[in-house]
C-alpha cells in the first residue's frame, strides 16, 4: 500500500469522453484494493466547453477535489486545456503533464502557439510529455475519440500512474460497452509501443 494518495486531473473539451476515462481509472484503483474518489460535472459544462475531472486514490481519500498545486499527473486531451490545469500543477508536487498534441482553437486576438503553451506547462511541472494521441487514433482506427484511452494506456504502460496496466485493461473491459470494446482495447494496447 502506498503511503500517499495519487492525484490525477483529466482535462479537455466536452465530448472527449473524460467521464468514461475517470470511471475506468477509479475501477482500476478499487480493483487494487485502494480507496478512491472521483469528481466530475454534468449538464451545461459538458457542452463543448472546458471539462475537467479528478481521480484520487491511495490509502484513504477524503476530498473528491484535488487541491491547488496538488496534482501528480495531468492528462490533457487538448493543449489549451492543459494550460488551464496549471492551477492544479506545481514543480513542488512534481506534477507531470501528459498532453495530447492537439489544439482545438479558441477564438482570440492573440492565439497561443504550441511552443508558448509547452513553455508555460514547464513552469508548473517536473516534465511535460507530448503525445500525438488524436493523430495516432485517427490514423490507426479512424476514431479521434479514442485519444483518451490511448493516453491512459500510455500513462499505464510508462508507469506514470501507480496502477498495473492489467488492472486498467480489466477496468476498460468492465466499463466500456461490448460493441465499442474491441476498438478501445486496441487503442489502449497501441500505447504500449
Amino acid at each position, binding site marked *: 500500500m502506498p503511503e500517499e494518495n495519487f492525484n490525477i486531473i483529466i482535462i479537455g473539451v466536452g465530448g472527449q469522453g473524460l467521464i468514461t476515462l475517470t470511471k475506468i481509472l477509479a475501477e482500476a484503483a478499487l480493483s487494487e484494493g485502494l480507496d478512491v474518489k472521483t469528481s466530475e460535472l454534468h*449538464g451545461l459544462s459538458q457542452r463543448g466547453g472546458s471539462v475537467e475531472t479528478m481521480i484520487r486514490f491511495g490509502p484513504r481519500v*477524503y*476530498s473528491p477535489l484535488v487541491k491547488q498545486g496538488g496534482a501528480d499527473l495531468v492528462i490533457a486531451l487538448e493543449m489549451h486545456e492543459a494550460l488551464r490545469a496549471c492551477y492544479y500543477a506545481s514543480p513542488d508536487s512534481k506534477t507531470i503533464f501528459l498532453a495530447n498534441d492537439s489544439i482545438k482553437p479558441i477564438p482570440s486576438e492573440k492565439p497561443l502557439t504550441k511552443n508558448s503553451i509547452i513553455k508555460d506547462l514547464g513552469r508548473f511541472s517536473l516534465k511535460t510529455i507530448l503525445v500525438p494521441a488524436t493523430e495516432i487514433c485517427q490514423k490507426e482506427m479512424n476514431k479521434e475519440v479514442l485519444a483518451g484511452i490511448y493516453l491512459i494506456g500510455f500513462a499505464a504502460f510508462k508507469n506514470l500512474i501507480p496502477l498495473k496496466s492489467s488492472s486498467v485493461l480489466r477496468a476498460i473491459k468492465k466499463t466500456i460497452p461490448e460493441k465499442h470494446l474491441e476498438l478501445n482495447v486496441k487503442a489502449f494496447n497501441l500505447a504500449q509501443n
Partner: protein
Amino acid sequence: MEEILLQKPGKKIILLGNDAIVRGALESGVQFVTTYPGTPASEVGNTFFRIAKQAGVYFEFSVNEKVALEAAAGASFSGLKTMVAMKNFGLNVASDFLLPLCYSGIKGEMVILVADDPSCWSSAQSEENTRGFAHLAHIPILEPSDPQECKDFTKLAFGLSKKFKLPIIIRETTRVALQAAPVRLEEIVKGTVRGKFVKNPHQFSTMPPRVLEMKNELLEKIAKIKQFSEKSPINQIDRGPSSIQLGIVTSGVSYLYVKEALKELNINLPILKLGFFHPLPEQKIKRFIGGLKKVLIVEELEPYLEKEVERLAKTANPKLQIFGKNVVPVTGELKPEHVISAVSKLSGKKSKFNFFLNLKKFENLKPEKRFPQLCSGCPYWLTFSTIKRAAPKGTIFGGEIGCYMLAAYPPHEMQDYLFCMGSSSSIAHGIMKAVPPSGGQKVIAFVGDSSFFHAGIPALINTIYNKSNPLIIVMDNRTTAMTGQQPHPGAPVEGEEIKIENVARSLGVRHVKTLDPVNVKELEATVKEFLSKKEVSMIVVRRPCLRI
C-alpha cells in the same frame, strides 16, 4: 444486470453520490419514484428510468417538480414508499405544495432528494441554497458528504419518515452528487407497487381552522426529531487533543475538505460534523463549543450554521470567538485550499506549499476562456442564425434554461433576458404591454419543448387571455436535452405524443406554424410575418437533438 441492482451484501462497488441515493432507496424498499430532470440531480431519475422495471419500482418523469411531488404524495397517501428527486430550483416550483404537505404529513414514507449547485456549474438563475427551506417549510434536512453517506442517510431518512410521518429532504451539493467512491452494498428490499387510499380528511384536508392544529402537530414532530438528532451518530464528533481550544463545526462535502486541511497542516483539531442540518442537535453543539476559545464554521454558501452557532454561543459560551464567512467565501463552492487557508489563519500552522504564490503564477497565465456551445451539428445552430437574420434590429430575445440558453454566448448572443422555465413568454407579455404599441419594439420568446410542458402553458394562456402579441418560438428538439435526453409529453418513450402546436391551437392561438429549421427561407419569412401580428403567435421549430 446493472451493477447497482446486485444482491451481494458486503460487496463494494463504485457509485456516484446520486446512484448511491438510488441504491439507498432500493435497499429501503422504495415503491414509487418521480422526478423532473435537473443537473446535478439528474442521475437519480436517469438510473431509476433504466432499472425501474427490473427493480419492480414505479417510475415517472413528471412534467414538473410540483407535479412530481404531488404525484408521489398521492402514492404516499395510498401507503407506498416514495422518493422524489429534483435540483434546487425544482424545489421552488414544488414549494407551493411542499409547505402544506409538511402540515398534513404523509402515510407511506417520502424522501425528497434536492441537489444544490454551488458555483453554478450547471445552473443559470441563482446560486440557491436549499437550506432556507428548513425553516420555511419546517422540514428535516440531512446532508451527506460522500456516496457511502448518500446511501446510509437515504436509509435513515426513510426510517425517520416512517417514524414521524413527515417527508425528509436529503440535500446534496454538486461535489457530493457527482462524487464517485466505493459504497458497501446491503440487501435490496422489494415491495409491491399497489397501495390503498383510505379516506382520512382529518389528516389530508388542510382547511382552516384544522390547518392551525396541523401546524402545531408539525412543530411537535420537529421537536421530537430534534431529540432524535441530539442522539444521532450522524452528528459526529471527531475528538482532538483536549489542550486545543480551536474547534471546527462543519457538514456535507465541507467536512472532507476540513479533513484534508488538517492533514495538510499536520494538526489535530476537534470537529463536529453535522449530518442533520434541520433540526440541529442544539445541546450537542452547545457542549462542543462550551470548552472552546475559538470555533471555525466551515460551510458552503450562506452562513446558516454560523448564525445558529452564534445564537447558541450566547448562552453556552458568550466569550467564544466565532469565525466563518470572514475566512471562507460566501459565493462559489469551497475548495480544499480555502479551508487550508482558513485553518492556517486560526491555528497559526503553515502549509509547506505556498498556495498564494502558485495562484499568482497561475493567474498570470490568463488562459483564454472556452465557452460551452451547442454541439457540432445541433439543429439549434441553424434555427438561431436564421432567426437572428430574420428579426429586425432591436428585437428583444427572451430565454430560459435548457440547451437554447447557449445562444447567450457568442456567436449568437441572443438572450436579452434569461430566467426560469416558463418565464420567457410571461416576461415577453409584460414587455409588450409596457412598450408603446406603435413604437416598434418586438419580443421573441424562446421556450424549450420540455420547458413548454413544465411551465410554458400557463404563460401562453396569459398572453391570450390578457391580449398581447409576442412571438413564441418553441425550440423543439424532441427531448429534455441539457439534462441528458429524458423523454417528455411531446416525445414519450411509448404511446401518443402531445403536440405542442395542437395545444396552442386548442387554446385559440391563430398563428401557429411547425417548421423544420432546414427550411431556412420559410422560417425566415414566418418570423417576419408573425412579428407583425396583433395577436400572440407561435412557431414550433422541430428537429431532433443529435444525441437521441
